[in-house]
Each structure stands twice: as C-alpha cells, then as structure tokens.
C-alpha cells in the first residue's frame, strides 16, 4: 500500500461520506476539489495554449517570423479580464460578442447540415428492403425502415407548434410522443448504465488498486 494510493483513497472516501450526510470532511474534500481543478485547468490552458500556441506563435523559438495577428486574440482575451471590475466591466462584452458571433455562425450551418439535412436525406429511404442477390424482401430491415420513417415523421409533427393537434394531425402527433417516450426510455437505460459504470470505477480503485484485494 503506497502513500499515493492511500491519499487517493482518503479523498475518495471523503467525498463518499456525503452519502451518509453532509459533513465537514466532505466539505473539505469538495473545497480541495474546487481549488485543484481550477488550478489544473489554468495550468493546462496556460502552457498548451497561451505559452505554446500564442507566445511561441508570436515569438517562435527557432527565430522565424511570428504570426502577429495572434495579438488580436490576446487583446480580446485581456479585455475579457475586465469583467472583474464593475466600472469598466462592460468592455468584457467585446470578446464575449466575438465568441458568441463565431459560435452562432459555425453552429448555424453545422447543425443545419449534419443534424437536419443529412438526417432528412437518410430518412428518404425505401420502405421495402430487398436482398440484392435473391430479390426477396428482408423483413427485419423492412420493418426497421418503416419504424424509422413513421418515427421521424410523427416526431416532427409532435414538435410542430403552429397547428392544433386535432384529427389525423393529432393522431400522428400522438404516435410521435410514443416514439419520443421509447427514445427517452432508451436514454434512461443508457444513463443508468453510465452512472453505474462511474461507481464501478471507484469501487475497483478502492478494492483493487488500493487494498489489492482483487487480482
């Protein structure tokens, strides 16, 4: 049992103590967590971005010509820090505006292309899937294609807000919500799976890496 793993185990158990009830040990571990993680992020961004990309980009260590346009990024970044002041904090909106604008421009197209158009294209499918060689219908895939087509169409109808859900339209929307529920059910199952995995990881750390009880 080495000291490194012992420390890690103490911190692990300290956080878990919250499950019994909120207590000073948990709050201490939490406080350390906040500090360490802020420090971790700051160091990584400092060396990998500010030092490596910006500073050595402007002043390359091999003495070649630097890319001085990077200064604009740094100036915007420094303006961001003005947010700490209440008097001239408004100037921090400039870099923010830049980030918001760039993100909006990038997202507007990427989401439209990848999440709408390419999905629509893939839904324009033949409802009858035929085996290329024998020419017979592949039933499993045919049913699958039907499910995808009905699900996407009815789901879209459910999220249609400018028409009342009545008649055929309403019935379609009803089918849509069933599909959404099955989808959420699948997400539910997967999320439970994920959360349990996190715990398995910690348990295996405690019993295997720390206590060495498992081979």
């Amino acid at each position, binding site marked *: 049992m080495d000291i490194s793993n012992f420390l890690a185990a103490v911190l692990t158990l300290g956080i878990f103590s919250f499950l019994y009830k909120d207590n000073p040990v948990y709050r201490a571990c939490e406080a350390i967590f906040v500090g360490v993680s802020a420090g971790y992020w700051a160091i990584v961004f400092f060396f990998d971005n500010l030092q490596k*990309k910006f500073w050595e980009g402007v002043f390359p260590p091999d003495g070649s010509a630097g890319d001085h346009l990077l200064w604009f990024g740094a100036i915007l970044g420094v303006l961001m820090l003005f947010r700490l002041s209440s008097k001239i904090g408004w100037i921090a909106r400039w870099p923010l505006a830049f980030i918001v604008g760039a993100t909006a421009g990038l997202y507007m197209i990427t989401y439209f292309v990848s999440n709408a158009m390419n999905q629509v294209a893939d839904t324009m499918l033949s409802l009858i899937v035929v085996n290329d060689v024998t020419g017979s219908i592949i039933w499993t895939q045919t049913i699958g294609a039907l499910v995808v087509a009905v699900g996407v169409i009815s789901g879209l109808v459910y999220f249609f807000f400018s028409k009342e859900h009545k008649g055929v339209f309403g019935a379609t929307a009803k089918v849509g919500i069933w599909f959404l529920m099955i989808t959420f059910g699948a997400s539910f199952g997967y999320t439970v799976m994920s959360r349990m995995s996190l715990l398995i*990881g910690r348990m295996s750390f405690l019993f295997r890496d720390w206590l060495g009880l498992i081979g």
Partner: protein
Amino acid sequence: MASTIATILLILVGVSLLYIAYRTITGRPVERRIVFIYIALAVALPLFMTLPAPVQVTPDVERLYDALEELRPGSKVLVSFDYDPPSAPELQPMAVAFMKYAFKHDLRVIVMGLWPQGPQLANLAIEEAMADQEIAAKNLEYGVDYVNLGFQSGNEFVIQAMGTQFKRMFPQDDRRIPYDSIPLMANVTNFSNVDFVFNLSSGKPGTIEWVQIAVDRFGATMGAGNTAVQAPQVYPYLRAKQLHGLLGGMSGAAEFEKIVEEPGDGTTFILSQMFAHAIVILFVIIGNAAFFTERRKQE
C-alpha cells in the same frame, strides 16, 4: 474463496430485497441510505466473483471492427481523447483495447485531446498497451509509430482549423517537439492525410462536433466510443453513415474487447454492471408495486 463468499453475500442481498419489497408495499418505505448500501454491494461484490458473463457483440461494434480491419498496416489513425477521469471507467477500456489493436496491426496512431485531461488519459492508455508483450517486442518508436499532439483550447474551433492544417492548432506535440520535426506528421497536413478518425467522447466537444465538422465538412472517415449517456444521441449519425461504428458505454467496451480479443477492464466490470442493473430494475418494480397498491386503496 473470495468468490464464494461474494456469491453467498449476493444471494443474501437478493433475499433481503424481499423484506424491503414487503415493507414498501405495506407503506413503510426504507430510507435512501439503505438503498445506497444495496447499490454499493451490488457493484462491489461481483468484482470478487469469477463468473464469466456471456458478452454478445452487437452490429454497431462489429461495424467499427470491420472499418478497422479495412485499414492496411501503415495507415494513419487520429485518435481524439475528449473525456475526463470521471468517464474513464467506460472509455479507458475502449482506449486501451483500441491502442492494443492499433499497435498490433501496425497502424500509426496520432493522439490528441479537445478536453484538457485527454492527453494525460491517452498517456495512461498507451502505457498500458505498451505493457503487452507482443507490443513491447515491436519496439515502437515515439514520433514514428505514434505521437501525442496534446491538448488545444477552442473546442469545436480546433477541429474547424484542423480542417486546413493540424499544425495551426498543434505547433508542437505534447512533448514539445515541433510539428515539422515529427517524422509521423511529415506528410500529414489535414484530415485528407489521415485514413481514419477515432473519437472517445463523454460530452461536448466530442463525437457530435467531430461528425459535424471533421466528417461533414472535411470528409474524414470516423468511428467513435461514447459514454452511455451520450451514445443514444449519436445513433442517427450511425444510421446515416456519418459514423462507422459506435461503442456505447461499458457494454460497448466489453464487446469491443471481445471482438478484438483483448480482454480488459470492460470484460471484468460487466458483471458488476449486470448486478447493478438488476438492482435498479428490482427497485423500480418494488417502488411501482407500492405505488399501484396505494392507488388501488385510494380508489
């Protein structure tokens, strides 16, 4: 020995659930800390057991395997580590199995991360893969057979700029070697020069951003491993062939380990996963049984 004790304890846990069911249905639910103990036992005890769990490889995992099998020796694979330690139980087994597969099949691996913790987790995975005897015998050389480009800030904008030039975002690798001095990167300018992209992702930026930018804008061929929380959301990409294969959560990891024949943590953990699911399902059933009994009484 430990296995037998664990099995007996698990059976006891199962039996005691009957008592909890009885209490709950008669309107005296147990407090949540009791539930906590159950889940802890359900996860911890199976770790001591040696039961083999029959893992069944699903088509999504097979598709990734088929895509990898198509890659000839010498192909360049870009692997992006976009996750942090909390998601490691799910994604690290995938990473390790992938690295072992890649090294054994002479694929050349370029590692990077859009999450600050990514490159360090990549180092851990490479360390573990290198411990394999067959791989150790190959004497793989850093910079020639694999390289860790490190982390860069900017989320999806990093992928966007990499579409023109990797060097722009990674002027030096994680070991501070200039991009131009890395033999592996000599002929790699952008996505058009790598043969496959593999992404391990637990959120944003991750698989969704990689598909949107690297695949749909710059034409990369890509497969992914996701945490189970995110996996359901990327299924539409899988169907639309924007993704070639998907490993979802712990079960995806175990299946991948099985198909590439590199059993590791995914295979070990799947038993715990199974019992944890069983407990959750039983608790939902008990809770609902009580709910319906009470509702009937009210009517």
